[in-house]
């Protein structure tokens, strides 16, 4: 027997029952700020040609929030798609899709972050 407060504090055997839920909300808040920044920044651009876009993203004021956006948004969609998979896949395909999801988010995230860093650190194209 455990008291009600003991059950609440114990968080079960995994000790992290609210982890997924909380990080979904935390990244949602970060996404809201970072996406608002990106939309306003894009709307204020006068040109979208190569030189203008490179010059824009070379700045730390753009490269850093852009990298943060990638981390927050990609973490958020990783959590979201997990719930979608769990809701609709009930057999072994669930495991396969979860592995593919992890590969997808890490691979795309790596390319995105590398691209931002390459531009910001001024490597010649």
């Amino acid at each position, binding site marked *: 027997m455990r008291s009600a407060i003991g059950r609440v504090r114990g968080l079960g055997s995994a000790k992290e029952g609210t982890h997924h839920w909380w990080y979904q909300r935390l990244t949602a808040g970060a996404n809201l700020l970072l996406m608002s920044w990106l*939309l306003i920044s894009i709307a204020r651009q006068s040109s979208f040609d190569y030189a203008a*876009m*490179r010059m824009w993203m070379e700045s730390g004021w753009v490269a850093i929030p852009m990298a943060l956006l990638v981390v927050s948004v990609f973490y958020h969609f990783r959590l979201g798609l997990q719930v979608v998979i769990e809701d609709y896949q009930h057999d072994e395909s669930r495991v396969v899709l979860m592995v593919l999801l992890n590969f997808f988010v890490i691979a795309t995230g790596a390319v995105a972050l590398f691209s931002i860093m390459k531009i910001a650190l001024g490597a010649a194209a």
Partner: protein
Amino acid sequence: MASRNPARPLSPHLQIWRWGPHMLVSILHRATGSGMATVGTLLLVWWLAALAGGAESYATFRDVFTTEAGHLNVIGLVVAVGLTLSLFQHMMTGIRHLVLDTGAGYELKTNKTYAMATMVASVALTAIFWLVMGLN
């Protein structure tokens, strides 16, 4: 893995309930999120990689979505409006979820109003965004 006994009764599913705006925005939240997580992610990564790759790869990216004159072509319009509308809808229903998380907004009338408001706001914000983009 969960194995299901088909003889067990199922709880009532979608076709049993009377359709309402709260159900629509719920599935819209999931659909727009899944769409952006797949199509949107690939396009964002392609855009960043093309820009990092140099003038030539950036031109290849741009040419898929724009005409010679530099305006959006049909693919560009569908993708641009589709993604921004999805983003604003997901953003608005996301804010709605954060409000619902506090325990507020479950009264039938309020809930219906919030659900409708997310759709009105997402269409309005998409229109404003492209109006500003068009003016530049």
